[in-house]
């Protein structure tokens, strides 16, 4: 009789909380498992090989703190697979995504659970996260993710080429970048490009509109929530600069030059090969250079800013890896403990950052002597700590608006848009129409 009673109670709890192991409190949060309660968590991420091993090390650290929680670490799982698992009702307890493009969808659809109740319950201080990283982990008031390491973008420049051209300091404004690029560019006798000072082609390597936008101080949305492409004059300034830069080289000449350069994530990367003197890139490039071109004489600096926005210098674009608890997770209480640990534990973040050569995503974790001693990498820690760190806004239709903006920018840069202002207005209208489709 007693066994039947226990089973009935358990069944009742299961119906209420979704399982005997996940007790939901009145605050809408699932409690962390008791110290003597054995729980197994599954974590899905896109990490593989060496990087998956580094994540395992961090998870081992979590297991030391929570000996009752074991973690099944599964790599090579992208957003599509996680979404399928959520739809199928058998998601992982914790999901890690390499992209922030889908955060709007994750939050608005409830695919990833809102973590606010947990943050309130545990009095977690979100001020330890820079504002930009807070932005790319929430959408319309729902915080469904936490940042787990960040990518920060700055300027890489070839010191030997700078010295040869008589340039001693990195450019600080877009005009300086253009002038320096002219001095650093070397043409072949037939007029083709041998070394480019800077490749201004939008879409090439890290030259994407959302990354440049941070240094131009452009607005993506107006006060009314609609696209600001047609109303913010910075968009016009940015694209006119890019067009002028392209015309300096010649569109076809530049296209032939970039087509012959190595792939972005290969040892043939043009900056590593000395084929371009300056490039925008993420902090992770320092690790690529150390492994693939250790003799390269280079330095890093914040990326130049718009001439009319000198106050932005020192900041830059950031994006990063995010972590959350999918809808239907079997052990949400324990899952939150793991999310909290990986996204806010200083030692865990620093360990991962050192291994992956990414920027740790909390302000306290930036003070890592190992990361600080690398002059190349230190630049990105400083950019991350800058109040001018920026990111692009989340949307409920992934990166659709970025594609529209980038397609237009590419078309204008290629010379196929006669009226820039009218074209930007049309692109803005398209972005707003696309947003209506899913909303």
């Amino acid at each position: 009789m007693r066994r039947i009673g226990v089973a009935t109670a358990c069944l009742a709890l299961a119906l209420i909380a979704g399982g005997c192991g996940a007790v939901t409190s009145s605050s809408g949060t699932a409690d962390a498992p008791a110290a003597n309660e054995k729980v197994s968590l599954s974590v899905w991420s896109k990490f593989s090989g060496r990087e998956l091993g580094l994540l395992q090390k961090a998870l081992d650290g979590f297991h030391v703190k929570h000996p009752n929680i074991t973690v099944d670490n599964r790599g090579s799982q992208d957003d599509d697979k996680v979404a399928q698992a959520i739809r199928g009702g058998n998601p992982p307890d914790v999901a890690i995504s390499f992209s922030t493009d889908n955060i709007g969808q994750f939050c608005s659809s409830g695919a990833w659970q809102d973590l606010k109740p947990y943050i309130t319950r545990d009095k977690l201080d979100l001020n330890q996260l820079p504002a930009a990283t807070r932005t790319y982990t929430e959408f319309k008031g729902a915080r469904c993710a936490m940042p787990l390491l960040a990518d920060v973008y700055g300027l890489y420049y070839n010191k030997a080429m700078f010295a040869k051209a008589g340039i001693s300091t990195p450019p600080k404004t877009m005009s300086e970048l253009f002038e320096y690029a002219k001095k650093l560019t070397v043409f072949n006798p037939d007029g083709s490009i041998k070394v480019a000072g800077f490749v201004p082609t939008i879409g090439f390597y890290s030259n994407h509109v959302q990354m440049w936008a941070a240094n131009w101080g452009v607005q993506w949305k107006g006060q009314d929530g609609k696209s600001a492409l047609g109303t913010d004059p910075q968009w016009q300034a940015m694209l006119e600069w890019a067009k002028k830069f392209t015309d300096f080289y010649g569109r076809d000449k530049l296209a032939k030059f970039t087509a012959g350069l190595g792939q972005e994530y290969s040892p043939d990367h043009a900056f590593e090969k000395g084929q371009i003197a300056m490039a925008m890139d993420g902090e992770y490039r320092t690790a690529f250079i150390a492994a693939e071109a250790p003799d390269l004489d280079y330095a890093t600096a914040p990326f130049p800013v718009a001439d009319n926005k000198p106050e932005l210098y020192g900041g830059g674009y950031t994006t990063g890896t995010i972590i959350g608890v999918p809808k239907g997770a079997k052990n949400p209480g324990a899952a939150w403990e793991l999310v909290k640990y990986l996204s806010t534990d200083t030692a865990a973040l620093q360990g991962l950052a050192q291994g992956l050569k990414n920027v740790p995503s909390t302000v306290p974790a930036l003070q890592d002597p190992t990361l600080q001693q690398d002059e190349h990498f230190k630049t990105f820690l400083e950019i991350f700590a800058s109040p001018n760190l920026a990111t692009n806004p989340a949307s409920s239709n992934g990166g659709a608006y970025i594609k529209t903006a980038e397609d237009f920018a590419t078309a204008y840069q290629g010379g196929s848009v006669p009226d820039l202002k009218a074209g930007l207005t049309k692109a803005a209208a398209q972005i707003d129409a696309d947003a209506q489709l899913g909303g």
Partner: protein
Amino acid sequence: MTTKPQAARAARFVLAGWTRPRPGHWVRPLAFMAPALIGFAVFFAYPLGALVYYSFTRYDLLNTPVWVGLRNYAFLVAQDPLARKAAYNTVWLVVVITVLRLIFATGVAAVLARIRNGAGLFRTLIYLPALAPPVAATLVFTFLFNPGTGPVNTVLSWFGIQGPLWFSDPAWAKPGLTLLTLWVSGELIIILLAGMLDVPGELYEAAGLDGAGSLRRFWHITLPSIAPVLVFGVINSIILGLQYFTQAVVAASVASGSADIAGSQRVIGYPDNSTLTFPVWLYQQGFHYYNMGYASAMSIVLFAVSTVFTLLFVHRLRRGAHAEGMA
């Protein structure tokens, strides 16, 4: 009163020994057909029905679909310029690939059919590229046609020809994809070759005695004899063009310099959306922008177009076969 046609029908049944079927006579054939029927229902009928339903909804893959009527179709027609661009690219590929693939495959098959020494070796060599996985074949092709470092433009320069930018030029990206498709059309070549080898030798002998040359024999004997195979080739090429996906995505990623993130929204369609095909845009909308209702509407349009083309050519095929039988 019995009318004349009814009487004629009754007479035919009697002549054919027709008897009223026993009750339950359909159980056995149905049981034999069950695996195919279940497969059809589960993997075709249900998904197609679901697709039709989703095409009238706003559906983000995770929440319950919301009925929106014809809104997705209206958006497709009036508000999505990239869908129009993608449709244009797909139609371009369908037309050019179908025509050139047929000409190329027929020409190569005709040459192979005449080779006597080392025929096996040549057939193997011609078929070999078709065995390469599409991703690998596209990677190799884009590197061969790299305007800066690829051997194709280098060889062209030996003859004083300034090679185009190929996959980096919106005007040359689709022709580049067409060349890639021709390179891997070994399957169609082998099918056409089989059709040509099946043409009775006496026909050629008789035509030869009448003084017909090689070209006339090819035009008046070979082509009419392999007409059904050619119609199959047309249908096959149209469907290939309508479903063009992998090669377009990989070529765009490699040419843009971001090969590790194939399929990312940053690189699809490169350069200037010239390689953005209808299926690529459909996939992007459904799985990257979470507009599955809209993607379903796009799928329905693609399905309708494919069905119309297929029915048209199957009808043509049957008419051709019937005419052949009458002859």
